[in-house]
């Protein structure tokens, strides 16, 4: 008998099926990887096992945990199981903790509820658990509040909460998707250790095959509520029997075919950043404390040539987004200068900025949040056209929108639709269309694919590569994801603590990083081939 047995699980909302007969098992002391793209039913499978399906959803089939039938268990029995025998870690650490309770209270709460321990005992157990997940008392006393911790630290608190009572099974639903690669590796290593220590079973859910491949003993690949393939990780990855597995594996290592890096003209660079720094005032601890500042960007200099694609990589909080805001003239540098096509960006007037903005556009991370849901595509995509020298007629505008939509692989007739009628990938195409409609020279793209599924992401990377060639666009990609840098950039810059610590041709930086921060990034980045090699070596040993 396996620890968790899911057999022919079917879940539907009203008439719409979500899961069509999913079966999987997790053994004690094993990591089972559950891989699938958004909408494949991974989270619903997890919530069914927790007995936490949202209202209006019904589950049929058989789910047992250590022999206990979950689907027919009454609520009071589930309350005793949850947090004690089966626990869960969620995707979004920023919102997973109650903002008004201290981390000590939140970890101790479950211990008190399940064991009836008094406050002092529960708190000392909570303390031990927080120490175990890497939050030592000296820096993280129990009376810290969640908002005083970073995303990775909060995820450690959530893990401490989940593992406080040594559950038999832990479900981790995309536990690192919101975190940068270095933190991701730390959190996954921690989960691995907890599994090895306590013979706990782990159901590790992710959309990223490369992440799971490195840690999972076995894999289940899910698509549209059905299991495509299941088995030993090494075997699945080596053989790639199922076409969907092959597609996922390819997509996650996809590198668009690009013409050789264009000859970089030695003339005047398109964008010149010289000695840029940005200070933020730090909140004063008392009325009389001296004012302090925090240097988010520290003496950064680089340039981008026409048609050149540059990646700026770094961990979260390294200052890359602040730098991007300065380059987009959304923020002013405290020091230094930014010159775009010979014009000063930092000190330009509104009129000067208008012409600069025409040539300098932006693509944001979130294709959901960056469109007004009540406007049609024609208006959304055509919005930057007010930057044009001469105002365009309505017909001219419509032609430009149609052209831009075609360039990003959408149909001109899509201009009459609303954003909600498009999928995530199509919406990102829309934001690219909006960026290229003024025929800019440089596009700044802030994590442009990190919210997308791997196969969609491969397509969008292709599109970026294509537009780079066709329209002669230069790019500045801002990302913590090295696969993006590898896929579409000629030059990679590594940023750390406000400074650019390394800069060079992408292939060189990624294959033989010279500085410590760059090495940390490269080592932590999930890589399918490496994961497979490691697995195969493990088997031979």
């Amino acid at each position, binding site marked *: 008998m396996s620890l968790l047995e899911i057999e022919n699980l079917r879940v539907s909302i009203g008439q719409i099926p979500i899961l069509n007969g999913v079966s999987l098992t997790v053994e004690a002391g094993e990591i089972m990887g559950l891989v699938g793209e958004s909408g494949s039913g991974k989270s619903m499978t997890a919530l069914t096992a927790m007995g936490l399906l949202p209202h209006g959803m019904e589950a049929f089939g058989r789910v047992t945990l250590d022999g206990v039938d979950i689907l027919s268990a009454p609520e009071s029995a589930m*309350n005793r199981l949850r947090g004690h025998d089966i*626990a869960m870690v969620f995707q979004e650490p920023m919102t*997973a903790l*109650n903002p008004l309770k201290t981390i000590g209270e939140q970890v101790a*709460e479950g211990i008190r509820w399940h064991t009836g321990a008094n406050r002092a005992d529960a708190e000392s157990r909570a303390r031990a658990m927080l120490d175990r997940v890497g939050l030592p008392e000296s820096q993280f006393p129990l009376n810290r509040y969640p*908002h005083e911790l970073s995303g990775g630290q909060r995820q450690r608190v959530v893990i401490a909460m989940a593992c406080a009572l040594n559950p038999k099974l832990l479900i981790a639903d995309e536990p690192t998707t919101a975190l940068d690669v270095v933190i991701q590796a730390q959190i996954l290593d921690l989960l691995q250790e907890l599994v090895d220590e306590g013979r706990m079973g782990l159901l590790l859910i992710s959309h990223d095959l490369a992440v799971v491949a490195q840690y999972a003993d076995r894999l289940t690949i899910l698509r549209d509520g059905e299991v495509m393939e299941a088995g030993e990780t090494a075997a699945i990855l080596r053989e790639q029997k199922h076409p969907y597995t092959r597609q996922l594996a390819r997509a996650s290592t996809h590198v668009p075919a690009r013409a050789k890096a264009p000859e970089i003209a030695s003339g005047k660079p398109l964008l010149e950043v010289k000695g840029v720094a940005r200070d933020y005032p730090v909140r004063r601890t008392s009325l009389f404390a001296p004012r302090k500042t925090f240097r988010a960007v520290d003496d950064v200099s680089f340039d981008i040539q026409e048609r050149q694609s540059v990646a700026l990589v770094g961990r979260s909080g390294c200052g890359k987004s602040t730098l991007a805001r300065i380059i987009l003239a959304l923020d002013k540098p405290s020091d230094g200068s930014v010159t775009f096509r010979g014009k000063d960006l930092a000190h330009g007037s509104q009129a000067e900025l208008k012409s600069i903005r025409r040539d300098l556009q932006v693509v944001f991370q979130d294709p959901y949040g960056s469109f007004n849901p009540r406007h049609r595509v024609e208006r959304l995509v055509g919005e930057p056209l007010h930057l044009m020298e001469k105002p365009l007629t309505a017909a001219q505008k419509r032609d430009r929108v149609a052209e831009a939509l075609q360039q990003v692989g959408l149909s001109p007739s899509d201009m009459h639709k609303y954003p909600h009628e498009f999928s995530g990938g199509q919406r990102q195409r829309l934001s690219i269309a909006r960026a290229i409609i003024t025929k800019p020279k440089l596009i700044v793209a802030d994590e442009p694919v990190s919210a997308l599924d791997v196969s969609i992401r491969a397509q969008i990377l292709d599109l970026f590569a294509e537009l780079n060639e066709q329209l002669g666009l230069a790019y500045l990609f801002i990302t913590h994801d090295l696969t993006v840098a590898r896929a579409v950039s000629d030059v990679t810059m590594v940023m750390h603590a406000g400074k650019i610590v390394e800069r060079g041709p992408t292939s060189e930086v990624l294959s033989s990083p010279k500085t410590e921060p760059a090495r940390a990034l490269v080592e932590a980045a999930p890589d399918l081939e490496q994961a497979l090699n490691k697995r195969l070596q493990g088997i031979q040993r």
Partner: protein
Amino acid sequence: MIVYVTKRLVIGLVTLLLASVVVFGVLEILPGDPARIMLGMNAGPDALEALRQEMGLNQPAPVRFFQWLAGLVTGDLGRSYTYSSPVIDLVQERLVVSLPLALISLFLSTAIAIPVGVFAASRSGKLSDTLTMGTAQIGIALPNFWLALLLVYVFAVGLRVLPAGGFPGWADPVEAIKSLILPSISLALPQAAILARVTRSAMVETLGEDFIRTARAKGLPRRKVLWRHALRNAMIPVLTILGLQFSFLLAGTIIIENVFYLPGLGRLIFQAINQRDLIVVEGVVMLLVASLILINLAVDICYAIVDPRLRIGR
């Protein structure tokens, strides 16, 4: 926390000063000569002039403003010319009725609204939610004076258990409380209806948050999650409305005090306006402004107690 409170306090004082300028200015612009109103239409010019001289009305406005302001600071709100007694005494006399009335109403409306709101939110979408919120909707639509008449008809005229109006004074506390019961219910119910709806919607929103799911994953039963995790997070909008309601209860009781013949602040200001007793109007309005600012300060401090993220001075 100290920085936070100090900042709020300074902002409050500045607001109070600005309000005093506005109150003084508005009454300055209003037509009507206080001296003539006091002495009546038949008074001779000499008598008028003498009175103006005595009251300092001949001095320029800024001088009178600063005199008035200095008076406010020392607790001297001037002298009413219709009651011929210091305004501060009048206010004190009335406050012993109005303040208990406001506090009892506030207590009642909170005690009703929060459990009802939490209950409706926990059953969101179900029949019991629809029914309670439908009732609350009716409660919001009810004018409080009509409710007051209805209560008088049932409890005073019909059942004869509570007085229909008047206030016997605090010499006999039981009788005093009895005479405040019906007025405070008629004030509290419509307020409770609003507060219950606010509580419900804040709770429904909070119950959709990720940390609620985390708490459920710990094994906590629904009920515990509701009271321990959701309620405190839903308190911010509830506190905001509560603050607004308290100031309304203190200032907005004119109608109810008239219905029940209660000698409270509301009636004082109503009569003062009718008789053009500008000194009383000025004094009472400033008192209400000050209490409003004080309540806002209290609400701000409550925010910081509820939410640790607000404790850092901003």
